[in-house]
């Protein structure tokens, strides 16, 4: 990519590096296990939200059923380890593949559709999966336990449980790696084409873009990352429940991303981390949390219509670009 193209991508390297540094050193500041766990989960949620931004922001296909990919991964891990006796690494790989396959399916089905229709179809598919999983009951191999529904299915790791520190750093590494990956692809040729078809599908088609194929690929990549977050979640929490498919979780991806700045990757990742940590880590009762979150959502979008990062990026853009109309624009 030519480096003289400051327009499309915000330059956030300083912010990101600083942020990563802070996170790296945070445990040394003497945080207790509870907060470490909150942050660890936050890292996973951040990757999940960033993955939404790939398909919903960069490629412009607003998905309201993103939890489908997450839940597929957690359930695959749980079922394969607990029922089929698979070792976790194998189950993890299978979970990733399944999530990606789900992404391909959803992408193919929604590719011919536009904007709100995609949202509606993904919502219906996500909820259908949710309802389906809620109704399923599984029986443990030893007999005597029935799993399923809201109680969920355990995930067997068969290793020593990780200490909060190890889990924290593993998740952080995962976050850094995933964010790097997402930014790389958003700024690559693939990402350029995704941005194009997000902006004007007609022009993209007239430019030779096989819209169906690229939409499907965006879904697959996003699903793979959401699935990876799901694998991490399954390992960390040790259980897969029907909530992993819930509408709330699907909405959360979209709303966190909106606050952060749809299409910026960095915005959604950071806002997910911050929002999750604030909501879960401070001592607010659950009812208050939701209320506060909804208010924060409304206020943020009111004053930062493009999300925090999105609005900042737009302001930076308009200051940086030579104003057309001044020179040579006839």
């Amino acid at each position, binding site marked *: 990519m030519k480096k003289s193209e400051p327009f499309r991508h915000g330059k956030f390297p300083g912010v990101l590096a600083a942020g990563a540094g802070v996170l790296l050193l945070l445990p040394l500041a003497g945080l207790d296990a509870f907060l470490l766990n909150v942050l660890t989960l936050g890292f996973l949620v951040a990757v999940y939200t960033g993955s939404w931004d790939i398909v919903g922001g960069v490629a412009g296909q607003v998905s309201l059923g993103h939890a489908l990919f997450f839940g597929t991964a957690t359930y695959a891990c749980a079922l394969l380890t607990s029922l089929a006796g698979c070792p976790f690494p194998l189950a993890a790989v299978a979970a990733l593949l399944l999530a990606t396959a789900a992404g391909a399916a959803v992408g193919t089905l929604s590719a011919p559709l536009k904007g709100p229709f995609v949202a509606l179809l993904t919502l219906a598919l996500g909820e259908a999966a949710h309802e389906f999983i809620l109704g399923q009951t599984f029986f443990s191999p030893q007999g005597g336990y029935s799993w399923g529904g809201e109680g969920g299915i355990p995930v067997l790791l068969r290793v020593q449980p990780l200490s909060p520190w190890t889990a924290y750093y593993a998740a952080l590494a995962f976050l850094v790696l995933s964010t790097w990956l997402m930014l790389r692809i958003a700024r690559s040729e693939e990402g350029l084409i995704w941005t194009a078809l997000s*902006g004007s599908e007609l*022009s993209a088609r*007239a*430019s030779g873009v*096989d819209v169906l194929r690229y939409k499907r690929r965006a879904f697959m990549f996003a699903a793979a990352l959401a699935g990876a977050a799901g694998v991490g979640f399954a390992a960390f929490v040790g259980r897969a429940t029907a909530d992993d498919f819930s509408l709330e979780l699907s909405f959360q991806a979209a709303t966190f991303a909106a606050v952060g700045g749809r299409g910026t990757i960095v915005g959604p990742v950071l806002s997910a981390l911050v929002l999750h940590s604030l909501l879960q880590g401070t001592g607010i009762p659950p009812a208050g949390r939701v209320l506060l979150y909804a208010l924060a959502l409304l206020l943020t979008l009111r004053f930062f219509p493009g999300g925090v990062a999105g609005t900042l990026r737009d302001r930076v853009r308009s200051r940086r670009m030579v104003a057309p109309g001044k020179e040579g*624009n006839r």
Partner: protein
Amino acid sequence: MSDLLLAEGITKSFGTTRVLRGVNLAVGRGEVVGLFGPNGSGKTTLANIISGLVFPDRGRVLFEGKDITRMTMDARFRAGISRTFQIPNPYPSLTVVESVRVALLCGQAARQPGREEKAGLEEELDSLLGRTGLFAQRFWPAAKLSQGCLRRLEFARAISCRPRLVLLDEVFSALSAKDEAELVALMRSLHREEGISFLLISHNPLILEELCDRVVAIEDGRVFWEGMPGDLARYVPATNHAHENEMHENG
């Protein structure tokens, strides 16, 4: 096959409205053919069918001997037919150079880019932008261009992958005289140097007279006249009034 493009028996209805009734149209290699007709005549629908935005109810479209009637628009672009749009839809968040890069990348889809190819793409991009007079504005947001520049951007996109046929949909309408003259010059040079055939859709007989080898006149979904552009004014006196009205409307 001497014909580059052959559209036979094109029939299309939207709901109960018959928009095209058995239209035939041919464009030869290196030819500039004009498609003339008032609004509502069906010329835009015909253009959409030829470019792949819409599929006909009956009839077929042959390009270089191959039946492309059901080929998608992007596949046609890669096969050598491109088009411009009457109302350009620039990508809201891309620059000029990025917008054209998208087209170049997708045209390249068939070939496997190696390192040399990558460098070649950047050069091709620069030369394309220079050709269409957009080099100075290449880092501007595409959405902020003036009408004249947006039309050039359409050109750049349309010719980026060495098409054999380009459909120009009212590309000269509602432009200042200066912009129009520059665009005409661009089209002429492309025709001369690359041997690109053009299908020029316009309701302006003067432009058609200036640029076309042959003109096809459509009204009410049917071809009712075909001939030399010079004869256009004589054979379609009734539509001159429609043209005048449109001139008033379009300003």
